[in-house]
């Protein structure tokens, strides 16, 4: 008697996800071009937030290295875009970011809390200035042109990356790796004593999460056609994933997705009206969220769900 609601409860989000994915994958057939471009932007932000949350969500290590990974992907595209087929370029972009994350991860094993935040921030700034200097003094350019690829192909690549990131995030959550990450977030020393190989778990997950950011950078570079270090290593790409994921809420998988969708759409709406000042609204929203929604959007949803239950308890 109790089985029916339980299965339907599990099947409902899965069915919904399936429906959304079918809608998304058939969109270019009937949707206008604008919708395709808008959804590419939204999916990009979702990928950034989701992959950031894969590592930083459960462990509590706030990484500001996303800009480094994203920019590395973009520069891969600029250097290899003409020589190799698109999928290979995107894959290599992701792998280079993973290697970068792997190195950064092994170097920063001892750093916790603020030191880790500062190190990752320093990493993305260092790479940005190195490339800036290299381009100006050795190759004699400021920016680079990237081959142009039609919007629909870009859209499908981004969609595939999104599905992959979602799948990986889901699988990690359900696996022993996810539990290990969770325990690191709760108490790293205790986790190490219980036999979790803290180092390996952290580095692998960090590298895995960087893959999607780098791959997304590689494909988005073709949309923007021209890149320079200030565009591709913009510190905003470090900040935004953090803000989106926290805004959405880290407790559930759909938190960063909601955050990414809302931020991308908000940016699209605000940037057309207040081209220069839309970040002001982000700032205000951020402060309000920190003050009134400490657990993000997910926390709010869970609060709504719990309320009627609490009411029942109170009445009995």
């Amino acid at each position, binding site marked *: 008697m109790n089985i029916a609601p339980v299965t339907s409860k599990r099947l409902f989000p899965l069915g919904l996800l399936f429906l959304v994915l079918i809608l998304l994958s058939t969109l270019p057939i009937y949707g206008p071009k604008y919708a395709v471009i808008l959804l590419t932007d939204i999916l990009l932000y979702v990928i950034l937030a989701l992959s950031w949350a894969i590592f930083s969500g459960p462990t*509590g290590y706030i990484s500001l290295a996303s800009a480094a990974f994203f920019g590395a992907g973009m520069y891969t595209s600029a250097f290899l875009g003409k020589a190799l087929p698109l999928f290979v370029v995107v894959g290599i972009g992701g792998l280079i970011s993973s290697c970068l994350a792997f190195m950064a991860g092994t170097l920063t094993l001892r750093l916790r809390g603020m030191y880790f935040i500062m190190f990752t921030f320093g990493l993305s700034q260092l790479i940005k200035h190195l490339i800036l200097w290299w381009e100006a003094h050795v190759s004699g350019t400021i920016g680079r042109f990237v081959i142009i690829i039609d919007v629909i192909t870009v859209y499908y690549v981004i969609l595939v990356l999104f599905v992959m990131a979602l799948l990986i995030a889901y699988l990690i959550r359900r696996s022993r790796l996810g539990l290990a990450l969770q325990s690191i977030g709760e108490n790293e020393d205790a986790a190490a004593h219980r036999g979790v190989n803290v180092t390996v778990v952290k580095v692998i997950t960090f590298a895995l999460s960087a893959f999607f950011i780098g791959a997304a950078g590689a494909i988005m570079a073709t949309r923007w056609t021209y890149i320079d270090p200030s565009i591709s290593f913009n510190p905003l790409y470090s900040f935004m994933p953090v803000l989106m994921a926290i805004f959405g809420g880290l407790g559930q998988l759909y938190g960063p997705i909601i955050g990414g969708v809302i931020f991308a759409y908000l940016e699209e709406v605000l940037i057309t009206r207040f081209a220069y000042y839309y*970040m002001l609204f982000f700032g205000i929203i951020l402060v309000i969220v920190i003050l009134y929604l400490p657990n993000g959007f997910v926390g709010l949803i869970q609060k709504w769900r719990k309320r009627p239950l609490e009411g029942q308890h109170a009445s009995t």
Partner: protein
Amino acid sequence: MYVKLLNIIIDGLLTGGIYSVIAMGFGLQYGVARVLNVSHGEFIMIGAFATWSLYTLFGVNPLVSLVICGPVLLIIGFFIHRTLFTRIRNSSESLAVVEGNSLLASFGLLFIIQNIALLIWGPFVRGLSFLSYPVHFAGTTFGANRLMTPAFAVGISVAFYLFLANTRIGKAIRSAAQEPAIAGLMGVNINQVLALCFGLGALMASFAGSLLSITYTISPTMGLEYTAISFIVVVLGGLGSIPGSFIGGFILGLIGSIVSYFEPGLSLIAYYVIFMLLLMVRPKGILGK
């Protein structure tokens, strides 16, 4: 050779002095108020633009506006901490959560302040010419502003240190840095003291901004660069150590001027390389405990 060396040293002291002032404020905000204030650079920018506006609109001497803007930003900083960060402190369960949420809130402040500045002053690069006449010093010629700024920076830093070391409020601040809970039991109004620390950080940022506006060009988006430098100096000197920030600022300034003498584009890269090596090898910094 002698002239070149003197130039390097003066440049190093100039940037180093400003770095010291910036980092001392930043270090106080993190070391005591536990706010890793990413918007520190924005307070510097506000100080610089307030000085610039007062000078170009009303002809106020930048050294006078230094004294005017500082206290105004102190009060603003105090109230920002009372309204925003005190609430975060009270609603979060552990110190790590307080630090994380404060970091995010200061990101919000960064966007808000920077964009308000863009609304007021527009996205242009500005500069003012004050005390730019040449001065003959030790056999060579310098702009007067380039000699005066380091002197002021050192003066401000020393005064700030003496304030923390010798006054009653300074004692309260130091006790709050060591053991906030026990300091509270001993009769220190902890919320007031933490807010004051945040305000003092804003005060130092404003001083640095005023000094910057005399010697360098300023723009509303300049803040992040100085925030990054505060990170580096504070880690170099030792997180939470005010004398460390003071010394670290001068060391970094001198390193920067030496590197940029050989290759101008490399000074920022040198900063970040030092920063990351330090984090890996000795995260405690020079004077860290």
